[in-house]
């Protein structure tokens, strides 16, 4: 039974033995190539050599000696880039994760890059959703962005007398890293791609209870970073005034005050977004908005400031007094205003693969298809400074791509081939192993012997 199933699966996949190595040069022919921003796919080929894309388009010849993969008219997109991700930093949410810290001594310096586990069973599930890279992001007080935290089916935390969150997070939640989801040990694509800070209610909370306190403390912190940068020698001699942050945090924030590392500001209420835009302008900080439920109400200002927005298109409820203006049309309205939008999945890890459905929901509510594809590929790559490597099908970029059985946003479509750095990834997961073990409940031997 298992063997029959395996052969059935292999028949639907494009590479006969999923996970098997491809040749150094691969030509994916008979493909409908869909790049971010494009309204329609282009019929043609993608040629991959030594893990990089070398040619894309309608009139691309298949190089001699190349292994030919017939996409059979399937749509080829860049691999999806997950934002606000916990991939590689969590197995089972309630058991624990590596995306937040709770110590007064460490905030900005916290760096997720040291925790990443390529053997996580969550990663293959994400890959089966076409995700090939992810921005692993520290969790700020109040959550990473628009995505709810993993599902709590009891609600008991809210009624057991415990405060909603016991973690007293820092003003700065730490630094994000971009990873690639290839099987194997080498997953870090780029560390230290962004700094994360909570604003609004959560920002008020970390600052002692009021929004006004957070902005005062933040300005002081940023001024301290600049002072530290100018007076390092004196600081080292202990000949300098006390600063509001630890030495490690000060060091970590130097690229932020210098405008090199973006600050991901988690903010939802329109007034909070305006306040953050002003702060970034005054402090000359490169800004990214995350959450951003009411961003559509500030769209012209956000567009004028050139600030990108990370959002979850399914957020349409007044989940709090900060999201009263939440609407399914947030993404479409921001796109129309000229804002760069990135779309996230429904949880940082286990339901990250739903990001492609969320892109479809954004389209159902007015976003262009090309814009929605950009929002799950090239836009996140640009926002986090890895667009030279991933995010679109262009010569010179990593061969991170997905061949789909149909429209990539449709639940009824499935990846037929997932390449990361040119390597075919197994279209398997622990979930599928479980499924196949229990597919036939009438075997003579207990299921424990089937694997």
């Amino acid at each position, binding site marked *: 039974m298992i063997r029959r199933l395996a052969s059935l699966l292999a028949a639907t996949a494009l590479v006969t033995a999923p996970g098997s190595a491809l040749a150094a040069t691969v030509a994916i022919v008979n493909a409908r190539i869909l790049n971010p921003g494009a309204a329609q796919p282009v019929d043609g080929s993608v040629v991959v050599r030594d893990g990089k894309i070398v040619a894309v388009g309608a009139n691309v010849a298949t190089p001699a000696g190349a292994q030919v993969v017939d996409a059979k008219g399937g749509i080829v997109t860049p691999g999806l880039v997950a934002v606000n991700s916990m991939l590689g930093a969590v197995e089972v*949410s309630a058991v624990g994760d590596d995306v937040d810290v709770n110590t007064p001594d460490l905030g900005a310096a916290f760096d997720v890059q040291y925790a990443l586990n390529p053997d996580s069973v969550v990663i293959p599930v994400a890959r089966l959703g076409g995700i090939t890279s992810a921005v692993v992001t520290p969790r700020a007080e109040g959550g990473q962005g628009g995505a709810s935290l993993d*599902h*709590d*089916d009891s609600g008991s935390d809210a*009624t057991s007398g415990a405060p909603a969150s016991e973690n007293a997070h820092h003003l700065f939640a730490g630094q994000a890293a971009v990873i690639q989801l290839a099987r194997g040990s080498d997953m870090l694509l780029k560390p230290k791609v962004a700094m994360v800070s909570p604003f609004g209610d959560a920002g008020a909370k970390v600052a002692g209870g009021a929004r006004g306190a957070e902005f005062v403390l933040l300005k002081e912190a940023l001024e301290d970073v600049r002072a530290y940068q100018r007076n390092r020698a004196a600081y080292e001699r202990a000949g300098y005034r006390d600063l509001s942050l630890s030495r490690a945090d000060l060091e970590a924030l130097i690229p932020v005050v210098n405008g090199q590392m973006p600050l991901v500001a988690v903010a939802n209420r329109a007034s909070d977004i305006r306040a953050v835009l002003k702060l970034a302008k005054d402090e000359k900080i490169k800004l990214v908005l995350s959450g951003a439920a009411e961003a559509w109400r500030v769209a012209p200002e956000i567009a004028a400031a050139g600030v990108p927005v990370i959002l979850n298109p*399914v957020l349409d409820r007044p989940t709090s007094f900060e999201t*009263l203006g939440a609407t399914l049309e947030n993404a479409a309205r921001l796109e129309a205003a000229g804002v760069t939008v990135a779309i996230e999945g429904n949880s940082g*890890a286990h339901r990250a693969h739903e990001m492609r459905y969320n892109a479809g929901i954004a389209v159902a509510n007015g976003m262009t298809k090309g814009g929605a594809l950009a929002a799950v590929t090239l836009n996140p790559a640009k926002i986090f400074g890895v667009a030279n490597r991933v995010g679109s099908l262009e010569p010179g970029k990593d061969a991170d791509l997905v061949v789909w059985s149909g429209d990539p946003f449709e639940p009824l479509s499935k990846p037929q081939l997932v390449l990361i750095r040119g390597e075919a990834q197994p279209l398997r997961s622990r979930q599928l192993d479980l499924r196949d073990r229990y*597919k036939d409940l009438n075997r003579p031997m207990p299921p424990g012997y089937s694997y």
Partner: protein
Amino acid sequence: MNKALGVALAALVSASLAACATTTPSKPAAGKSPPPAASSQPPPLPKGLDPAANKDPFPSTYRPMPGRDVALVGATVLTGTGAQIDNGTVLIKGGRIAAVGAGLAVPAGYETVDARGKWVTPGLIDTHSHLGVYPSPEVQAHSDGNEATDPNTAQVWAEHSVWPQDPGFNLARAGGVTTLLVLPGSANLFGGRGVTLRNVPGRTVQDMKFPGAPYTLKMACGENPKRVYGGKQRAPSTRMGNVAGYRAAWINAADYMRRWDDYRAKVAKGDKADPPKRDLQLDTLVGVLKGEILVENHCYRADEMAQMIDISKEFGYRITAFHHTVEAYKIADLLAKNDICVATWTNWWGSKLEMNDSVEANVPLVEAAGGCAIIKSDDPDLIQRLNQEAAEAMAAGRAMGMPITEAQAIRWITANPAKALGVSAEVGTLEAGKRGDVTLWDGNPFSIYTRAQRVWIDGGLAYDRTDPRFQAKSDFELGQESRR
């Protein structure tokens, strides 16, 4: 075609029965006092002391919204009975489904809706919601879903926590949902009674209550009860503690039932008898033992479900549905054999260890084993997209070679949930005589791009995507600058 014809014939047969059914709300079956007794009988118990005197103390005040007779013409119709009718017509008369079939003639007096290119399904039913008890905005003052003060709170009723102004009801309606079960949370072994609602805007929860729907009891297995009470240094703190808790409660319930039966037997004989003191907690459990209250059991793991089935047999009650049940596929045969529905998601997993073994094909595997499979939300966002979650399950089934049709998959969010709520006679399929709960979609409901266009509840237009007059807003949303 044969099936379509059958539906149409059924429609003709029962159309007359249906015609006057919605003008007066139907009364619940229960609620009669004990039969009048001989002259030697003691006076009846004071109001409120006899659990059998009034089993419906918070009666439904639901009234269907105004509507006219409607004909949806030219649609692809998924009836919820397993049939797909192309170029189908659905007739709603007097608030009830009058006929369903291909190319039916539209009688005079109907408003005709051109549904060509569109799809029509029964109104969706969510078997697991916390709308109203965990409403939006999600602030502490609104946190009314778990009476997490004792592992057995069978005495609490979710309807007493429902805030009818939860904006989530309106959003769910825009997702095609017309009926839902609102449950207490799962902090407790016995969480309390659920309430089945018509998804209409109401001033009170009674305005939303599904007339005649049976009560349900929320039970919970596994991590939640043991975490909540173990954390308070009291029982249960383990899974074996959970099981001891269930069994102790059923023993108490059986004993309480016996005391009331003894009392009534004595009274019937004219003997002097002292009535037992009424106990709300035990009333609910006795309702389960008598088969009047349906058990909706939160339970993730296969091994725990098997134990819950054994407990139900030990004490003589039935489990109507397991909820969440991400491991149903491991015991799909056992669940089918015991006729227990499985209400689950497609790909929610990994939040905690007991939901670590999810497979996307759970629902198709349960159905393939002959079971009753249900997609439910347990979530105010997912309830807006039950059709999408069903599409993901359908995709998972097809990916393993099962030829699952749309006509089959729609049952996971219509007919099968109706069964799990004990309201199959009234809703869940487009069959003549059933309530006129209908969702019109602008395309195949299993596409990500498809949205509900119009929703009728008991034949009244309750939602229209293109007409703000039929887009209800809750009190909470009025006057909010940011909602403009």
